[in-house]
């Protein structure tokens, strides 16, 4: 997961980077200047951490991404309802970590949207891949474009965690999609 940290305070940025790297599966990118982040293909990030004034100044970009944004605040008091989760910069390390943990958990939940079961079409593609057919042959066989085959294969890998053709073949045999005899 890639998170952009956008504040003018170098030490604050570095501190957040340190915590994120130490405790989370996160690649932080630091920006002192919001415009530079926006020039640096900003859609590449899964989340953003910044002060509320930056959020307001660049609301065109951040408002549609409010669920992926964490707002930094100097206020110790509990903030009134805000659009995004907040993080008080004066808190103890433990309290900051707890807030970050909740934020990351929420981001993971959003990313979790992909269903885990294979669709009937994906199962078809899996069977053919497992039998050793090339993408082109699979496309012809199922009457779909190569690009569609590629996108099914990408989903298979994402859902099963298996990338190689032989890995997919063995998965297919283990689950009875093809019999051993078909394969060899």
């Amino acid at each position: 997961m890639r998170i952009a940290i956008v504040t003018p305070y170098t030490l604050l940025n570095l501190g957040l980077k340190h915590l994120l790297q130490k405790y989370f599966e996160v690649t932080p990118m630091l920006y002192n200047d919001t415009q530079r982040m926006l020039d640096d293909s900003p859609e590449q990030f899964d989340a953003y951490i910044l002060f509320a004034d930056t959020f307001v100044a660049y609301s065109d970009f951040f408002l549609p991404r409010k669920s992926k944004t964490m707002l930094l605040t100097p206020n110790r008091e509990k903030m009134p309802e805000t659009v995004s989760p907040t993080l008080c910069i004066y808190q103890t390390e433990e309290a900051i970590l707890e807030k970050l943990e909740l934020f990351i958990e929420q981001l993971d939940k959003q990313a979790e949207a992909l269903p885990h079961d294979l669709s009937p079409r994906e199962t078809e593609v899996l069977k053919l891949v497992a039998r050793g057919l090339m993408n082109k042959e699979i496309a012809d066989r199922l009457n779909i474009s190569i690009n569609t085959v590629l996108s099914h294969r990408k989903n298979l890998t994402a859902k099963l965690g298996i990338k190689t053709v032989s890995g997919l073949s063995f998965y297919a045999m283990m689950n009875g999609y093809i019999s051993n005899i078909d394969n060899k």
Partner: protein
Amino acid sequence: MALINAETKLCDVILNEPALIPVINRFGIILGVGDKSIRTVCEEKKLDSEFFVTILNTFVNEDYFPESRLKSFCATQIVDYLTQTNSYYEQFQIPNIERHFKSLINQSDRDNNNLELMKQFFDELRKELLSRIEHDRKVWFPAIKAAAEARHSDFYGEQASPLSNEPDTLEEKLDDLKSLFIIHLRGEYDLNLCHGVIFALYSLEKDIKQHNRIRNRILRPIAEELLNSCQDNR
């Protein structure tokens, strides 16, 4: 982990990171290391301490990979090290995984064909690794060494070229095998033996990753350069 230097005591390094035990073995150092510094141990064993320390550091720190320093070591030294890692896979890690796998299958539910199929997948991977090792031993490594020593360079120059082999899929297959165990395993099986196989797979994977970094990013360019200089001499 902090970077190791030549004044660090070897025992502290190993106590911190037991995964280095097979690595020091490749340099002819066995346990019972005493409390000497790395520099002293290397002097006694006539090892290049800079090379030794660099290998330990790259092994322990996944992000640490000083390309230009590694390229400054001589090709022979790198080939010797990779030869040692190859024989560690051949003589120790692969037989170890096989032994565990066989007992796992024997001790587990007969109706569970999952494990049998995963073993077949492992066999495929094993064959790929062993044939790469064979090619290294017979063709690629001798060619690089000969070219480096500038003997028979006319003859060997061609073969020192970056492998005729396609880039291999060992790392990806190991990843897939891990996924089959971790995500997709079903049925009844012996827990302890299953853990044994998985831990052995992880340690093989870690070692192969290290080996491949050195192989692809250091030795390959060195070999190419040697080939070019051989051709210039012609």
